[in-house]
């Protein structure tokens, strides 16, 4: 059934957005993980996606490759560690500064929302394709 192609395209989009959600959750979870020095703290990550053309999408379908597998990469964000003055902290340096990951809380929340909306859009597209297929089966019915 050729509707399988539409489903697989939507599935690739869903997989990408799910990865974005996972990475954002990881950033938020590690937001307050202090490190012994500025280069030892957690580096916030981000998902980079590369759009695949229609032909590539179908080529991968034909090859039965894992949907959405190779089109998204996770790279570290270029964010400097956040230095906080906490003299009593076990990780404080000689100036009493503690390094925290440079996670941009607001930007992460916006990414979270954007990923959620994009996922919903993919689900809606998939449901539209399914409805279309179901309507096709109604052809000639009583």
């Amino acid at each position: 059934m050729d509707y399988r192609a539409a489903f697989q395209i939507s599935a690739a989009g869903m997989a990408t957005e799910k990865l974005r959600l996972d990475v954002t959750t990881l950033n938020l979870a590690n937001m307050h993980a202090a490190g012994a020095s500025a280069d030892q703290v957690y580096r916030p990550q981000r998902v980079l996606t590369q759009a695949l053309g229609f032909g590539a999408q179908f080529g991968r379908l034909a090859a039965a490759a894992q949907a959405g597998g190779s089109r998204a990469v996770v790279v570290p964000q270029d964010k400097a560690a956040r230095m906080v003055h906490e003299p009593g902290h076990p990780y404080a340096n000689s100036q009493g500064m503690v390094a925290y990951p440079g996670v941009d809380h607001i930007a992460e929340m916006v990414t979270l929302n954007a990923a959620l909306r994009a996922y919903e859009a993919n689900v809606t597209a998939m449901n539209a394709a399914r409805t279309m297929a179901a309507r096709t089966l109604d052809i000639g019915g009583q």
Partner: protein
Amino acid sequence: MSIDPVSLSAILPTSEQFLAPPAPGFAAWVNESIGAVNETMVSADAGVRQVALGAGPSLHEVMIDLEEARLSFQLLAQVRNRLLDAYQEVMRMQV
């Protein structure tokens, strides 16, 4: 103009035609389709079980597999409905 008599051997099927196995017909196709649909449903069910156990494919892939299984079953059901309609149409035929 001469008219040739029709010989009996031209009308009767040859022995090869008698002995040849009948081509796989519609029934075989339906059987095959039922098998394929059943396979789709079984694999979707296995995916659901794996997700419930916390392993295997991601949730959206399983949901999409379920939808595909449902659509292929609906297609088969529609084929069966059309077939039954045609059969009943033949049964209602006046002779």
